[in-house]
């Protein structure tokens, strides 16, 4: 059948936003006449149809699965069968924890072209070319898939724009093969946040550095972080001085904020040891009164200004 097949993601009854980003990526890839289909696997897949009816989606395939949440064996079998039935040229999934749980097994067993954590995908001279990072994101690597009729790609989140506008795609149901699952999903557990905060899990961090001047200023930024919904972090000098617990230190000798996607650094100069922990972050916003501060070379956005003024103004918005 060819075309592009997108596997949407849902969790606990909510469609995960990355699903629409995948549609946006499919949009950018599609050739004339190429169909984009979105499959959703759930106990009640029909409930996601409205959310998936966005511009660029030609068809929605609902797949009923017995488990309320992700199951590796079920998904491997169901998605595999779907691909066998529809023969898409390209299958797009999210580079997410659920995907980690099955897509590599599927691709390896079936021999699809396969790559993960792709942030750019395009066709060059008719060939599908996917770009990802290499060597700790310090280089970019272009991959191609010679001789593979189906290529399965896991795309990085926050890299593709979801489409604007609605659509009325054709909705069909797909019967997934009965599968004996060898794992049993149980309950979900929320991680509580004590003050023994786990920086490695934080996705949004607001960090203060020496630019805040003195210990007495810390409460202001703690309050700001709470207001914007960020985890408060700090650079090494602050932790060493004891103004914040060492558990909040971000940077080379502190915890690597590996899950961080948005990082606001206030009054952090960007000493090498600090930056070493943050290089992978998608969006870094640096606020510093020193225009020459080295953090501006790695930040996505920079604000040269007085840290306290910016903090006060920002507070007003939340």
């Amino acid at each position, binding site marked *: 059948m060819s075309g592009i097949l997108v596997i949407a993601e849902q969790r606990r009854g909510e469609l995960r936003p990355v699903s629409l980003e995948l549609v946006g990526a499919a949009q950018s890839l599609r050739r004339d006449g190429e169909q984009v289909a979105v499959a959703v696997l759930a106990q009640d897949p029909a409930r996601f149809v409205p959310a998936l009816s966005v511009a660029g989606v030609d068809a929605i395939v609902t797949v009923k699965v017995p488990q309320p949440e992700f199951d590796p064996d079920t998904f491997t079998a169901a998605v595999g069968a779907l691909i066998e039935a529809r023969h898409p040229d390209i299958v797009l999934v999210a580079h997410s924890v659920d995907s*980690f*749980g099955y897509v590599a097994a599927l691709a390896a067993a079936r021999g699809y072209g396969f790559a993960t954590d792709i942030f750019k995908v395009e066709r060059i001279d008719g060939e599908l070319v996917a770009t990802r990072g290499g060597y700790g994101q310090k*280089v970019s*690597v272009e991959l191609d898939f010679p001789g593979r009729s189906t290529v399965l790609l896991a795309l990085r989140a926050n890299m593709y724009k979801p489409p604007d506008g609605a659509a009325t795609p054709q909705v069909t149901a797909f019967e997934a093969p009965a599968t004996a699952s060898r794992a049993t999903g149980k309950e*979900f557990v929320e991680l509580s946040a004590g003050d023994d905060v786990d920086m490695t899990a934080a996705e949004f961090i607001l960090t203060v550095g020496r630019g805040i001047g003195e210990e007495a200023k810390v409460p202001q930024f703690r309050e700001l972080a709470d207001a914007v919904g960020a985890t408060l972090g700090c650079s090494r000098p602050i932790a060493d001085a004891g103004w914040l617990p060492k558990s909040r230190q971000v940077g080379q000798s502190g915890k690597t904020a590996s899950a961080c996607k948005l990082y606001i650094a206030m009054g952090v100069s960007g000493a090498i040891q600090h930056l070493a922990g943050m290089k992978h972050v998608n969006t870094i916003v640096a606020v510093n009164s020193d225009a020459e501060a080295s953090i501006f070379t790695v930040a996505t956005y920079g604000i040269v200004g007085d840290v306290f003024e910016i903090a006060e103004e920002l507070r007003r918005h939340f």
Partner: protein
Amino acid sequence: MKILVAVKQVAALDEDFEISSDGRDVDPDFLIRDLNEWDDFSLEEAVKIKEASGEPVEVIVASVGPEEVDESLRKCLAKGADRALRVWDDAVRGSDPIAIARILAAVTKREKPDLLFAGVQSSDQAFASTGIATAGLLGWPHGAVVSTLRYTPGAKTAVFRRELEGGLLHEVEIQLPAVLTIQAGINTPRYASLRSIKQAAAKPIEVLTPADLQLANDAVGEAGSLSRVRRMYIPEKGRAQLIEGSPAEQAQKLAAIIREFKGEAA
């Protein structure tokens, strides 16, 4: 019982690195090698199970790579692994994670462990696929991103929690034998003093070729991979996009960035 731990010696880039002449990799002079950070955790988890167990547990580490990988394997032996295995020959060069998985699957068939551990991903290429691909080739049950594990040697199942986005955990019970990819932070990896690493040099490392594992040349290397490197390049190093305006205007734009981000993670 046996736990097989697949480890990788990763490469980090040195300062002022250069792309090699064929444009598809970094000049090896600029690569600094070390044991993959995630594998510290998966090895520690295996050794912890061994130490807490009433019945004997053998922990075997296996890796794919040339002789320099032995240094990392020795570190693993110093940290409590009983035996080490390395697979290599020139045909393996250029393997992607799936080709590596083929080798690991063959090793697993040979060793017949009850559990195969791998790290969630490697710190250099971060494909996050090798462990699960191995499970797919073996046809074994599998679970990824394990942040806590409860297993008693001899039991037929294990209970683990997968670490989802946003600090959520999902508890799962899985049948054995199984492949689990272990997340960083699951435990505190022990320190191997340099003396203990030196003394581990006395323990032998078994070296195999793909042929020893009944693997044809086209199962490994570029031929056995599901992707091919076309080009490797150094991306433009940006300077931050400066947000101009009065403090109020700057703060407003910052607030917008925050809102946009949170629209995601809600």
